[in-house]
């Protein structure tokens, strides 16, 4: 079997592997983020990763550890800080603001390499090494296992929290667990897609899939498919066109989202050529 040219290099193989794992895991978590209207929280958690990665670089620790510690801590704070969505928006914004301030401080102190900031904010998928692949794989497996474990109560609590609470489902615990899963997912996605561009994987594919299907099973499958097309397609375009990978992934994600808005609620037949007159 011939290997395509772009896969002959180690850095490209690592980039493909990391992107594939993140695309599958991140978009599945993202499906529930969109269902639960927590897009702002998701965006905030990725950006909070900026402070974690910058802080870890400053003290010479593994950036992945810094990312996980910071983002999981922020997820717990968010879960704690208010139940209703309106209340939460403000507290999430405040936590985000504070951690971005910290990140700016860490980058300022770690003046040796200001490019580090760009790498964290916009991703550096071609710089992923084997140790990061290991972190990404293990964390993704944990996140997916967690998502499967809480699937039923999470589905009910997301769609009808009052009825779920009445049924005796521990809705606050489910909320917290989900935020922790989202936090872990965001943390490991930061080096791949970048803190600022996490929407491309977490929100774009899931919201397009929900526009095209009102079924959860179909929606989850479609989400993964769209996410893989966007992120791997973005990588390949970036290789041949010599453009930043994150920009290509973000552009594809936006394009598919825009298409989904325009064709929302269309039946599957809308996309098929008419066979009969």
């Amino acid at each position: 079997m011939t290997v395509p040219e772009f896969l002959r290099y180690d850095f490209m193989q690592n980039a493909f592997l990391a992107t594939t794992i993140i695309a599958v895991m991140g978009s599945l978590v993202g499906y529930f983020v969109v269902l639960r209207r927590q897009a702002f929280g998701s965006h905030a958690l990725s950006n909070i990763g900026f402070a974690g990665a910058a802080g870890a670089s400053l003290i010479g620790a593994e950036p992945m550890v810094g990312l996980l510690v910071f983002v999981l801590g922020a997820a717990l704070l968010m879960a704690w800080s208010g139940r209703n969505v309106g209340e939460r928006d403000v507290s999430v914004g405040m936590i985000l603001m504070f951690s971005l301030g910290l990140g700016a401080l860490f980058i300022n102190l770690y003046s040796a390499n200001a490019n580090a900031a760009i790498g964290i904010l916009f991703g550096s998928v071609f710089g992923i090494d084997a140790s990061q692949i290991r972190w990404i794989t293990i964390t993704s497996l944990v996140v997916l296992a967690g998502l499967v474990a809480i699937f039923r109560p999470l589905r009910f609590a997301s769609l009808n929290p009052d009825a779920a609470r009445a049924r005796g489902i521990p809705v606050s615990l489910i909320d917290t667990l989900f935020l922790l899963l989202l936090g872990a997912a965001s943390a490991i996605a930061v080096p791949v897609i970048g803190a600022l561009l996490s929407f491309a994987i977490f929100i774009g594919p899931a919201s397009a899939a929900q526009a095209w299907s009102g079924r959860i099973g179909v929606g989850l499958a479609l989400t993964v498919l769209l996410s893989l097309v966007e992120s791997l397609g973005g990588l390949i375009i970036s290789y041949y066109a010599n453009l930043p990978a994150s920009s290509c992934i973000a552009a594809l994600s936006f394009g598919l989202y825009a298409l989904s808005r325009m064709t929302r609620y269309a039946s599957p037949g809308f996309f098929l050529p008419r066979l009969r007159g």
Partner: protein
Amino acid sequence: MADEPLIRAQRIAAGKGAASVFEALSFDIAPGSFTALVGPNGAGKTSLFETLLGLVPLRAGKLTVMGGRPRRARRYVAYVPQASKLLNDNALIGREFVSAAYHAHRWGMPLPFGLRHQTQAVDEALETVEARDLARRRLSTLSGGQRQRLLIAQALVSDPSLILFDEPLSQLDPAARDRVVSVADVLTRRGIAVIFSTHDVNPVLRVCDQVLYLAGGRGRAGRVDEIICDRTLSELYGTPMRVISEEGRRFVFEGSQRRLQAVGQ
């Protein structure tokens, strides 16, 4: 009627803040009965539901639900919130929304090949609330009354013995109201007890077995004509009240005959 009531409340008091929302409230709920929970806004209808679900602790009195403590009976009690409280841009179809309650207390994920029982339970629930036509429609395209019926179907999927309806008629037009009331009435004929909170008793007059009226921190339960009458309501509100019956409907007014003010309409 069965000897053992589904719920027995004896002089219960409950509330979240410093003061109790209601005190010395006593009533029984029989299996398969229809109870209208009536009272002005803030009288404690929602607090009573939370007490029955064990979400708010009792301050006084004795309360048994299905022969035990309320928290232990929660799996047999379903709560139907107001349709307007749900997200109205939900992109899921009716069937998915209803399915979400199936085995929701279990951990894990349903496998695609084990869905026969779920499909059957959801079909039955949709049939009961006359919502088969909503199964494939997106929630975001449905009216308030249609969503309310899907909420009831979702409650049915968990196979409850008692369903608590929280103001299901608010923000519905009269036709949708009648439809929700008749669906709730059908449930009682299947042996499911219904407690139906509403600030206007008239839409449920023809179907309810008893009225539980909350006002002024007190409450009384009994037949419609025992409760919606001048004497009982005057006691509850602590001020002279008048009930006027007209064409089978009852209108509650505050004050003496000379100056009447409509209440709870």
